[in-house]
């Protein structure tokens, strides 16, 4: 129900990218295909394609982030767009300016795209309903709701390693309750047709009714990892130790930390993923994070290709337009 009405234009093309929920399998595959065509750009001597030359993209970060903002910035530059970085945090709003005032000010600067990160769920949806029709909105993370480009770069990484999604069992381990990454991954995995999606966490970090999103819940990591092809670890925020969600990092590591021993419950060729930044010794052991099954660094470089793909698609461009098809 979410999304497709607002995310797609009248021709069914991607207009805004707010959530992986509600989009068709072919559209998600299409994003991955586009990303494939962009993946080689970064390896070339001249790391640029002129697809978005003359376009202005605004990075609207209401919540601080270096990594995500940087990859969006790099992606925009590789597409030859001009990029504006705005760390709005609370400065504008504390002056009494409403969010829609801020947006209209930016519109007046003739921006073509807003990349939005915000601490509140639904912020990107809200902004998409407020902007002028020619502006595209890409969600770079809203509250606990969605982080669709992160999910798609994870899908890209999975597809590169496993080719097809059909027979995969995937486990997502960690703080599902607060994780926008987990929600976006769950929707993407199920739309792409995996055999099974599991979530593994203590009861305190599992949101109520999560089964309705199409997952199986496990509280025990060893049973949960049995026979899986892909392990997606989530970052555990330090503040979860407050508020009675978890007793301590040590106890969390003892029960849910991904060690080599636990990894052996998964399939022998299972890959290990993590959206970063990693808490070594909290959710994952260094030997696993740096081990041969880890694809964590690949995820980062895939992030640029995915963001290039989504930016180009929402602006109605594809890499074929410049004869750069992979």
């Amino acid at each position, binding site marked *: 129900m*979410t999304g497709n009405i*607002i995310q797609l234009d009248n021709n069914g093309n991607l207009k805004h990218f707010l959530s992986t929920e509600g989009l068709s399998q072919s559209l998600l595959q299409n994003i991955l295909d586009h990303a494939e065509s962009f993946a080689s750009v970064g390896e070339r001597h001249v790391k640029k394609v002129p697809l978005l030359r003359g376009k202005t993209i605004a990075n609207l970060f209401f919540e601080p982030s270096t990594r995500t903002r940087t990859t969006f910035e790099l992606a925009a530059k590789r597409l030859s767009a001009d990029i504006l970085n705005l760390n709005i945090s609370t400065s504008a709003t504390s002056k009494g300016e409403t969010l829609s005032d801020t947006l209209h000010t930016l519109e007046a600067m003739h921006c073509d795209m807003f990349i939005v990160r915000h601490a*509140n769920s639904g912020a990107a949806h809200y902004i998409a309903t407020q902007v002028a029709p020619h502006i595209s909105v890409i969600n770079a993370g809203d509250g*606990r*709701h969605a982080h669709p480009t992160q999910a798609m770069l994870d899908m890209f990484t999975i597809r590169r390693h496993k080719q097809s999604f059909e027979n995969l069992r995937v486990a997502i381990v960690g703080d599902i309750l607060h994780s*926008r990454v987990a*929600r976006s991954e769950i929707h993407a995995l199920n739309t792409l047709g995996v055999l099974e999606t599991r979530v593994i966490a203590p009861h305190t970090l599992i949101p109520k009714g999560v089964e*309705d999103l199409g997952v199986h819940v496990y509280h025990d990591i060893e049973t949960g990892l049995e026979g899986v092809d892909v392990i997606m670890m989530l970052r555990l925020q330090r503040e979860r130790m407050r508020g009675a969600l978890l007793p301590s990092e040590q106890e969390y590591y003892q029960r849910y930390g991904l060690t080599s021993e636990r990894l052996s419950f998964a399939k022998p060729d299972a890959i290990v993923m993590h959206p970063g930044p990693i808490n070594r010794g909290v959710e994952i052991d260094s030997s696993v994070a740096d081990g041969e099954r880890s694809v964590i660094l690949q995820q980062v470089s895939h992030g640029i290709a995915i963001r290039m793909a989504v930016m180009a698609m929402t602006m109605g461009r594809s890499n074929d337009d410049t004869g750069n098809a992979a």
Partner: protein
Amino acid sequence: MRIQVKGGRLLDPANKLDAKQDLFIAEGKILGIKKKPDGFDSDLQINAKGKIVLPGLVDLCARLREPGLEYKGTFITEGLAANSSGITSICCPPDTDPIIDTPAVIELIHQRSRDAGRTNIYPLGALTQSLNSEQLAEMHILKQAGCIGVSNALKPIDNAEILRRTFEYAHSCDLTIFLFAEDNALKNKGVAHEGALSTRLGLPAIPESAETVAISRALLLVEQTNVRLHFCRLSTAHGVQLIRAAQKQGLPVTADVAICNLHLTEMDIADYNSDCHLQPPLRSERDRTGLIAGINDGSITAVCSDHQPHEADAKSAPFSLTESGASTIEHLLPLMLHLVNRKELKLEKAISLLTSQPSNILNIDKGTLQVGKDADICILDTDASTSVDENNLLSTGKNSPFKGWELQGTVTHTLLNGEVVFDRSEL
């Protein structure tokens, strides 16, 4: 003004009155029913043929936003919106600005509402000073000044000892407490019902237990203090069960529900529709049917608009950052009829929930059609329909979650103290 209401179907469930009869009004009172009083000569005749004549409705909770929040609404604008739904008496919670915790504020409210001349206003006094949940408000003085009950509005009282003392003190003042039962810690800054929808949308969630724990705690303290307690705005089926059991046990407790919770569920939030950001939150369909059941078995005896008009900016932001509350007052009666048409309620039940039963909770002499009573009356045309359209809302608040709905039934006339305060043909 002498008024004859001709040919209508008089419906007053409290007096088991349901008959096609004329109504005669003079000097603000109902002078006669059926038989024309001797020497009665009307200045005005209202043709109510084919329509239903009801007691003026009593709304147990509406925020008209005066004093202090006039940019959201006033006694005049919201009073007119109320009249258009047949409402003539309104109970207002104390969370105005300033808060209703001194006689001066009550005086101001009475004066301004009298000047507006649209409805009777019954203010609730603050239960604690400034609603600070720490120190008892001057309940006796507030009662003397005209408060008909006391309430902490939406402000939680976390400290059980203080809650107990407020119960004891209100009991000794012979005041009813109007309690919104929500445990602040369990609410945990939530903005939507804890369930599949809040999980999908990633919204901070309010569990069912935020209501049931608060109700249970209050019931145990009622048992100890014997204060009359009215539970405001139930939202869960489980909460209804707790109240039902307490009533069976003989505790002096009553309860109401807001009209939105009888029609809408969490699913209506859909893609972050901020008009559905309410407190208490919209809950599951199971809860909605549980509330309807609670009405039908008599555990819940009133339905209120819980009207909270907002300016556009208050609802224009990411969901969690919007203000809660819906603008509902002008569709309270058509929305109740909608439940009747869907066979969830009987017509008599629906009317008594909006008239005599809330009057009983407030202990006011309203909500019936009887000779000698104040002539607060509403005339309902059940054949005409109302479409809820943002551009036609009378309320200053356009934040109705029912936009686009077609509702059967519309109020043609509303009389307050024997004067016509609303005539739809003059809109």
